[in-house]
């Protein structure tokens, strides 16, 4: 029997993760680009920016599929392998069934500059640590796969691309990717550039690269 439990200010359950993250104020700007103002070529170049971010270990390590196992990959890890200590985030994607992510990735009550300075310690942010939803599997996936996935309402939480872009600005775990601390490599570009890239890609008609 799995129970629902509360952790900090958040309610964690098997199929639900509801917490303060939804009410955060935006820190970046959702810039609009009129339809037709971005060429196909520019649209594909904008997609490429997004793909470089999506496939970067800082993002893809937690965008894993139905294995529910976070990955350790990227320059700070040496060889690519699943998260140590036999960690599984389980179907809940927050580890309720075994070890909650937040057991070690403790939820901060206040943002803190020096929470993540030490290498090899679990990163901590002001939201419960979690895997991305299983529908958003990116680890090891091609640019074309992720491109078609991101614009598919079935897999993107029934969002428009503008919804997706502004959603990025409200997720504290995601924002950490640009300020990861320790010896971890930051995700490329900036969140503002990624949001702009998505909006330009959208204005160009969400073109996807072929395989």
């Amino acid at each position, binding site marked *: *029997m799995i129970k629902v439990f509360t952790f900090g200010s958040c309610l964690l359950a098997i199929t639900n993760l509801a917490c303060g993250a939804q009410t955060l104020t935006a820190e970046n700007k959702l810039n609009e680009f009129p339809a037709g103002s971005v060429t196909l070529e520019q649209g594909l170049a904008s997609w490429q920016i997004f793909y470089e971010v999506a496939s970067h270990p800082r993002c893809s390590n937690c965008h894993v599929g139905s294995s529910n196992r976070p990955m350790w990959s990227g320059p700070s890890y040496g060889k690519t392998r699943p998260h140590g200590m036999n960690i599984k985030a389980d179907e809940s994607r927050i580890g309720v069934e*075994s070890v909650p992510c937040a057991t*070690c990735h*403790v939820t901060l009550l206040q943002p803190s500059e020096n929470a993540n300075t030490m290498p090899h310690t679990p990163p901590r942010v002001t939201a419960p640590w979690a895997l991305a939803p299983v529908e958003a599997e990116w680890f090891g996936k091609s640019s074309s796969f992720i491109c078609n996935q991101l614009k598919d309402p079935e897999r993107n939480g029934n969002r428009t691309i503008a919804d997706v872009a502004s959603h990025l600005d409200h997720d504290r775990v995601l924002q950490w990717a640009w300020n990861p601390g320790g010896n971890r490599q930051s995700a490329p570009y900036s969140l503002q550039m990624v949001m702009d890239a998505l909006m330009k890609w959208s204005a160009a008609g969400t073109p996807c690269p072929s395989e």
Partner: protein
Amino acid sequence: MQITVNGNQHEIDVEDDMPLLWILRDELGITGPKYGCGIAQCGACTVHVEGIAVRSCQVRAADIDGEITTIEGLGQPDALHAVQSAWVEHQVAQCGYCQSGQIMQAASFLDQNDDPSDEEIDSAMSSNLCRCGTYPRIRKAVKTAAENLRSA
């Protein structure tokens, strides 16, 4: 600031970034939770915050959000927690250093899932290290504790 540990309120005067493990051991003299690594790699410092296992070396004073339970408050000598009884029954401990963390982890895990498979037990307990290698006895004791909790 005020914190509640094992049902008792304490007034403490510490830096915001002092880890809970330091507060427990050095400020309050509660030495059941052990220091092994300080970087969430061993589990020896595991306590509960609002019933959920956390590595107390990772919880800074400023982030304490709820009532803390340590091994000292989980059960009492004459009224052991089901996990503690199972630990005695299977004589799990060797040197004992890791065991308060093991027990706190197991108690929190079984509170969420009282009918775990071997695989789930291994997954729940793998981030608590034991240099004495008591893992086979830990697995048996978790199973016994789960049975006792279900029939309680």
